């Protein structure tokens, strides 16, 4: 079981490195987010809300980097559906559960590997996590990458129309990272978009960012356990939903 899942996942991981230009572009963007935005915004933001923008934004970029890379699996899953490569997957001697878990894990691997470089950067720019904090960081990364991989797989299989797939993915993608605390603190969000504030505060990316900010020592006053539980709930719900949608749409013609 475990080995089948890993073999399925290895295919998605290998493909990730085939998109070299896309990858290079992402790295440049994420680093630019930290360096350029950090330097520019540092002198523009209200210091009572954000004392140091670089320390503030870097843990957010950890979430963003993980999100972007795990989420990228949806693109291939969508193309596979349209080109009927999914029929090939369905014919392989693995169970449907192994297949779907393998895909989730494949996306999650992309996220975890891509994020690792940014973890080192965060250690340099923000602070050294304690061993306990590392456990929280690992938990956060594993769950968030699985949840986002599942989400993008589900979104990519709701329709065989490639344009519609891409549109749905982009909309959800921008919603998730704009309506989060990655670039702006939760207090500001509550002031400006009142009704959206709960969504922003409890979105998976915001929860993960809060946990990273705590882990790297930027925030002290965080209810770590509740945030971890909440992220766990998000992950379980998204994965169950995604499994159902993926398998239903994969086998719909048949």
């Amino acid at each position, binding site marked *: 079981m475990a080995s*089948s899942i890993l*073999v*399925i996942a*290895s*295919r998605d991981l*290998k*493909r990730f490195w*085939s*998109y070299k230009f896309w990858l290079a572009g992402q790295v440049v963007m994420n680093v630019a987010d930290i360096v350029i935005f950090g330097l520019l915004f540092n002198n523009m933001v209200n210091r009572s809300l954000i004392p140091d923008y670089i320390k503030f934004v870097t843990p957010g970029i950890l979430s963003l980097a993980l999100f972007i890379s795990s989420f990228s699996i949806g693109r*291939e899953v969508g*193309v*596979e559906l349209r*080109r*009927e*490569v999914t*029929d*090939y997957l*369905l*014919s*392989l*001697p*693995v*169970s*449907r559960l192994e297949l779907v878990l393998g895909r989730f894990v494949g996306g999650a691997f992309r996220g975890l590997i891509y994020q690792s470089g940014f973890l080192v950067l965060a250690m340099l720019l923000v602070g050294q996590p304690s061993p306990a904090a590392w456990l929280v960081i690992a938990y956060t990364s594993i769950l968030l990458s699985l949840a986002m991989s599942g989400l993008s797989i589900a979104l990519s299989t709701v329709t065989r129309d490639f344009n519609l797939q891409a549109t749905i993915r982009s909309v959800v993608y921008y919603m998730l990272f704009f309506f989060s605390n990655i670039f702006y603190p939760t207090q500001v969000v509550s002031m400006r978009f009142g009704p959206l504030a709960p969504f922003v505060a409890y979105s998976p990316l915001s929860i993960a960012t809060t946990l990273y900010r705590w882990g790297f020592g930027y925030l002290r006053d965080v209810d770590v356990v509740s945030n971890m539980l909440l992220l766990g709930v998000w992950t379980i719900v998204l994965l169950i939903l995604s499994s159902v949608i993926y398998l239903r749409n994969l*086998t719909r*013609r*048949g």
Partner: protein
Amino acid sequence: MFLFLAGVRLMEDRVVAVKVVNFTKRFGNFTAVNGLNLEIYDREIFGFLGPNGSGKTTTLLTIATVYKPTSGDIFVYGHSVTREDYEVRKLVGLAFQDPKALWVDKVQELLEWHARVVGFSRGEAKKVVREVLETLDLWEHRNKYFYQLSGGTRKKLELAKVLIQRPRLAILDEPTAQVDVPTKHKLWNIIKELRDQGSTVIIATNDMFEAEKVCERVGIIYKGRLVAVDTVSGLKDRIPKGDVIEIVIEGDGRKDKAIESLMDLGRVEYQGNTLRIYVEKGEEKALLAADILRSAGIKVKSIMVKEPTLDDVFMYFTGARLVEES
């Protein structure tokens, strides 16, 4: 009589690899396969013939558990495709009609991954993929992306997957379509070897020559219904008056007598001193015809039996009658 009974026993003793029971498949309102019943035996090469859109691929994909039956069931070595799909997949290898890969996939990587999924260790996977690539003359293409391959090469890549797997049941959907003629002959031998090494093989094809060359039994499917199943020669025998016995006699002075004596066998036509008799089971009747002529004192210069081709069989069972009945 004894032979007949022995034949029946032989059939009963054969292990059934695939049992199709009242299989119907609908896509929306359209019925692609309609109440199919069929048995395919262990370690035979079974051919699925039928015009475009007759339901071959639909049936094969359902056997491989990619599609689910709308009603009825299919059993692969006793496992139901509806209730034990995972058990079925462990026994089945499938080469698709339309090769399945994404542009980012490279030949060797794609196949090594396939080998891993079907159960080889990393080291074994490398080895078996190399062997199969060399067998199929694909080694030089190993580092190419899928989109860089020609149509025939893509088809060979599909077959490679099955050769790596060597499944109990190999399903090949038009394995030699788009492949050049010398390669076709090579692939037919490879397919026979696959069977000789223990696989049951089902081939869908439109190529009558291919069916005749590699298949022991064929089923003809037409508009989602199975219209005939038999050995290739059995099917030919089932075309009414499909055989032609061509007899050349010496001197046409005795022609009338000859025709008269042969009338009982079938319709007789003549041209010069060549007589044509339209019959079933041409080989048997030819011997009879020779005897009749000899006892009538007519000298036979040559005698030849022309069998219908499988094309004729196909046309006959799928609607167009090539051989008109008089």
